[in-house]
């Protein structure tokens, strides 16, 4: 029994390539039965079927082309042709399977070209290619992506068989590439229950199409489409749940609208395919589809403009973040130098102490010994004095050892700190590289690197930052205990550097996402425009004919798939929004292979599920916890020196309420001296938010939040009366539009960064700040159980 997968079951059926009872899809294609070269095109092709179909041809065939995603060679199959070209993603060779190529009797030359990405052989020991009787040994681990076996006539008239191998991938069939990408998208959206290897399969297919179409002679449109699909597939981070930027209700609304659009065209497409099967397609039908394509192109134009705006905002945030990071880097270097000097100073001091200690100890020991010797001669008192001196000397020696240990500790601390600096430096380089890599994707011409998995730059994760933070604090413990000059400053600088790095990475990731969306939109616009033109051209060519070719059929299927994909995405966004809203895993999973009716039913069930949740869950009510009052010296010092304060709210801070969502954050300064003036404050988060679910903590990735606001600083009052300050609040919005209430609301469980920009607050002496207030407003469930706000002392 064959160990190979059943591909016909794995691949979702494509209606524009209908398989018939009589044989495989391509065998009924006139292009194959009468074409020169005879071209086979399908997702899965069994070579034996090709040979059978070839025998049905009336005339001899001199060239054969096989384009497939998977080619199965399960038995010896012989072709007599001048050129046999096989361009497939994967080749499966069963036991006894051999591809035999013979040269026609009257032909001077003969060639076999195989382009493939993956070779699986059941029996690796036996040859699987026979070229004029000779079998080049090509096991899977030595198989190149392109193999060219050639038999030519030499100058002497002798035939010469040679083998050329390269990793270059010449472009494959465009129509098959379209079909492969369609399949990859369908596999990706297959929904719940899909095997993990199927998810891997869509990545492999997209990568293969990209690799082949990025060739100089490839189809740039297919290359771009596959590159975008690849990027979407690669950036899936299942451990980090995405949060769509809108509220659940908005997605529900959008999904409903998309469903209506799909409903409109779904029936028509079904009718078209039925019509093709029954009476053939007519010009009028093409006109209808052309109208849909034009509508899609207009829609894509609007979406592109929106994506461009988002990207510009994200790019600005990213650039600002990088500038801050660069500035912090120089400060970090300065702090490192100060710390180094502090270390040197401390070392000198310890050496001096040690020298004095050793001298004293040696002297005491000598005196003690002498006193003992002479004391024994001069009497018991002297002897006792000598013993005491010796004991003192021993204590001093002990002290000396302690000092030496401290020196050793110091050395260790310095070393650990310097290593940390190197780690931070590496992190910075990773960040820069990451951002550079993300920037590079804007260059559509550089698509080659997309297909290479090694070139993917994984962003530094939340866990990495946390680990680094813990490591920094642990390493500086020793230095702080020893009171080395500059240690506190260096620690602060490193922490700020880490925070800024995290922010830079997250803004970079967000920018990359925006770029991705924008590229997607650009490509979609390009695709829709091109498709509309192509459909128009085809409609013109179609005339009054009833028969249409397969390429035209694909357009019909694609327009339906595009709309269906939009609906699937819309429901996918609903899933993300539902998860963020309810903190439960959604029970509805859309798939591109679902019919339109199934998707409408899914949409209805999603809304029902949400309604049911809202009815049964704890009531959401306004949440106004007590404000944080931050007066910790270290935090205030950081604010003074760096003009920045970072404050992390952990899940333990609000243990009794659930599903907290913030709509406003209030920040204010309390100064020791009267200061009546406008103050500008920047509040930001890195975009990673935590929350609790019944199954445990969960992390969400969303766009980083950043907003600057101004307020009038009022005279200090009692801490409990802080809410009386006017104009000190900022709404949580992602795009600066306070009136837009449709945007998502973050959780408080993240690192809040409060920055007092010097250029907006001229003359403000932050040394006068004796307290910072931080207050959240929003909604939460479980308020009835009572909740007290965290305080600075209770905060992490």
């Amino acid at each position, binding site marked *: 029994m064959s160990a190979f997968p059943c591909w016909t079951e794995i691949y979702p059926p494509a209606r524009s390539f209908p398989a018939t009872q009589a044989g495989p899809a391509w065998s009924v294609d006139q292009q194959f039965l009468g074409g020169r070269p005879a071209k086979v095109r399908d997702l899965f092709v069994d070579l034996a079927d090709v040979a059978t179909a070839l025998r049905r041809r009336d005339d001899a065939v001199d060239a054969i082309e096989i384009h497939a995603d998977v080619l199965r060679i399960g038995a010896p199959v*012989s072709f007599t042709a001048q050129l046999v070209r096989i361009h497939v993603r994967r080749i499966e060779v069963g036991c006894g399977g051999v591809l035999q190529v013979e040269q026609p009797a009257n032909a001077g030359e003969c060639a076999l070209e195989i382009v493939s990405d993956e070779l699986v052989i059941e029996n690796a020991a036996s*040859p699987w290619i026979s070229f004029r009787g*000779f*079998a*080049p*040994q090509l096991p899977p681990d030595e198989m190149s992506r392109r193999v060219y076996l050639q038999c030519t006539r030499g100058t*002497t008239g*002798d*035939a010469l068989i*040679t083998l050329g191998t390269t990793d270059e991938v010449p472009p494959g069939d465009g129509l098959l590439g379209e079909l492969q990408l369609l399949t990859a998208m369908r596999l990706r959206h297959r929904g719940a229950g899909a095997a993990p290897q199927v998810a891997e399969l869509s990545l492999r297919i997209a990568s293969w199409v990209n690799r082949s179409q990025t060739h100089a002679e490839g189809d740039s449109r297919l290359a771009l489409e596959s590159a975008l699909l690849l990027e979407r597939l690669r950036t899936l981070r299942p451990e980090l749940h995405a949060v769509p930027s809108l509220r659940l209700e908005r997605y529900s609304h959008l999904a409903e609208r998309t469903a209506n659009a799909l409903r409109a065209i779904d029936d028509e497409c079904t009718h078209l395919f039925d019509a093709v099967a029954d009476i053939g397609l007519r010009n009028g039908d093409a006109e209808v589809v052309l109208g849909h394509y034009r509508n899609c192109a207009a829609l894509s134009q609007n979406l592109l403009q929106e994506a461009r705006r988002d990207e510009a905002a994200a790019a600005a945030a990213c650039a600002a973040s990088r500038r801050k990071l660069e500035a912090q880097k120089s400060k970090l270097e300065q702090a490192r130098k100060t710390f180094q000097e502090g270390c040197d100073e401390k070392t000198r001091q310890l050496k001096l102490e040690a020298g004095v200690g050793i001298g004293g100890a040696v002297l005491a020991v000598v005196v003690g010994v002498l006193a003992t010797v002479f004391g024994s001669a001069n009497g018991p008192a002297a002897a006792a004095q000598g013993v005491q001196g010796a004991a003192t000397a021993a204590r001093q020696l002990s002290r000396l050892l302690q000092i030496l240990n401290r020196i050793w500790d110091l050395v260790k601390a310095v070393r650990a700190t310097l290593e940390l600096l190197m780690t931070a430096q590496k992190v910075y380089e990773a960040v820069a590289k990451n951002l550079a890599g993300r920037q590079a994707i804007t260059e559509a011409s550089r698509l080659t690197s997309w297909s290479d998995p090694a070139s993917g730059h994984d962003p530094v994760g939340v866990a990495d930052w946390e680990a680094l933070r813990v490591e920094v604090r642990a390493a500086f413990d020793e230095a702080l205990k020893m009171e080395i000059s500059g240690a506190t400053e260096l620690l602060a600088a490193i922490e700020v550097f880490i925070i800024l790095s995290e922010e830079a990475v997250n803004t970079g990731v967000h920018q990359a996402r925006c770029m991705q969306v924008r590229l997607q939109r650009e490509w979609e616009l390009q695709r829709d425009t091109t498709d509309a033109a192509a459909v128009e051209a085809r409609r013109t060519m179609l005339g009054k004919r009833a028969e249409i070719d397969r390429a035209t059929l694909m357009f019909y299927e694609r327009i339906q798939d595009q709309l269906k994909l939009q609906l699937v995405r819309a429901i996918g966004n609903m899933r993300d929004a539902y998860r963020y809203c309810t903190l439960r895993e959604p029970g509805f999973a859309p798939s591109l292979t679902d019919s339109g009716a199934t998707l409408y039913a899914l949409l209805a069930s999603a809304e029902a599920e949400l309604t049911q949740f809202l009815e049964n869950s704890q009531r959401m009510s306004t949440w106004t916890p007590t404000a944080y009052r931050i007066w910790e010296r270290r935090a205030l010092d950081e604010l003074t020196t760096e003009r920045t304060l970072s404050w992390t709210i952990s899940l333990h801070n609000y243990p009794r309420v659930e599903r907290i969502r913030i709509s406003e954050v209030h920040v204010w300064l309390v100064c020791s001296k009267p200061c009546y003036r406008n103050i500008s404050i920047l509040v930001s988060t890195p975009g990673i938010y935590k929350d609790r679910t019944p199954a445990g903590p969960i992390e969400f990735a969303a766009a980083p939040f950043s907003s600057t606001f101004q307020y009038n600083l009022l005279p200090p009052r009692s801490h409990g009366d802080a809410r009386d300050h006017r104009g000190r609040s900022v709404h949580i919005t992602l795009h600066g539009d306070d009136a837009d209430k449709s945007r998502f609301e973050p959780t408080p469980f993240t690192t809040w960064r409060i920055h007092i920009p010097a250029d907006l607050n001229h003359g403000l002496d932050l040394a006068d700040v004796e307290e910072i207030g931080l207050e959240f407003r929003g909604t939460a469930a479980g308020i009835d159980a009572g909740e007290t706000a965290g305080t600075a002392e209770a905060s992490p």
Partner: protein
Amino acid sequence: MSGSVPATAVPERPALRVLLPAVVLDAALLAGASAGQAGRIVVRADTLRIAGRCLLPGATVDILARRIEFAPDSAIDVSGAAVAGFDAAARDPTRDGTAQHLDGHQGAGGPRGNDGGLIRICAREVVGTATLLANGSAGGRSQRGGDGFAHVNGQHARRDACPLAGDMPVPPGAVAGIVRMLMPGLDSYQRARYGGHAQAWLRFGTLGQGGRGGAPGRPGDGGSGGRIALRHATPLATTPILAASGGAAGQPGESGARGEPGADGTHVLLVNLGHGFEVHDIDMYWQYELQGELMSGLAQLRAAAASAAEIVAEPAEAGRTLPDAVSCTPASNDELASECPLDYLELIRAGASRDIARAKRSRGLARYEWLAELTRNATDQARQDLHAAATKAMAALASAAIALPATDG
């Protein structure tokens, strides 16, 4: 060199050169392929694996490889193709005896066996039991002799009789002569009128023995043996099996069957006296006296029919075995190098480079070593460059091996 084989004339069959890094000669794949029709096959490879009994009848096979591996029960067989002789028992009626020539004719000679081909193998290493065969094929079986003439009986003879007038030709198998009329009751006038000159012929077929069976043809001679030269740089682990002997002589066909003797039937006399005499049965007119020439002809025919001497078939010869037909000798690197064309050396270098790139370190190293050995004493610039490249690569690999252990086997 002692084992060298002089270049033979290129046969009319097409020549085929193969230049591949690694190749398998598989008997099953070769069987139906056009490569089997090639008269001269030149294989230049890094590694070659022989699987099954590869039949290339009469071909010249010239192989150069770094490593040749013979799978169990595999062989390269360029023995002459077996010839198709005559069927031992098949009859050819045209060779049967006739009334004029009672004995069957000798059968046709058998075809000559095909000569064995030529195998030249130069390799650094031969793994497995090298089995190389270049025998001449056996001669073909000769044709069966024709059967002896079988007499027809008297009833059939009567059908030869017919009324005739005037002179008539003597039919086959008959003896013509004068018949003297001894019919009683005729007077002299009548004898003078009706006798006198009478012509008659006699057919004695019914009188004789059957013809002897014809001898079979001369069987075909055996084909001559070919040549085998196996040259190897490293000692062979197992003794090779090399055979290049002449083919055996062909088998003779069967002798023809003796013809059936004639039964004593009616003697037919045809008398033509010029006066409209009819045909008579000679027994009815026995008193007619056969004259001398008829009597002697009858005796002659009887004597011929009675001959029964055996006819002996002619024997064939076995094929020749060439002197020094088989040689298996060690070869120095220089001798092997002299066999290597430049494109082969380039192929080895490309393969080694690919191996290193694909982390197949051990094989890459082996290929570089082979290349270095083949180009060590090169005089032309291209080969010297290849030697330098191989030496440099080996040095780099050696230093890498010190730094890091090899990851592949």
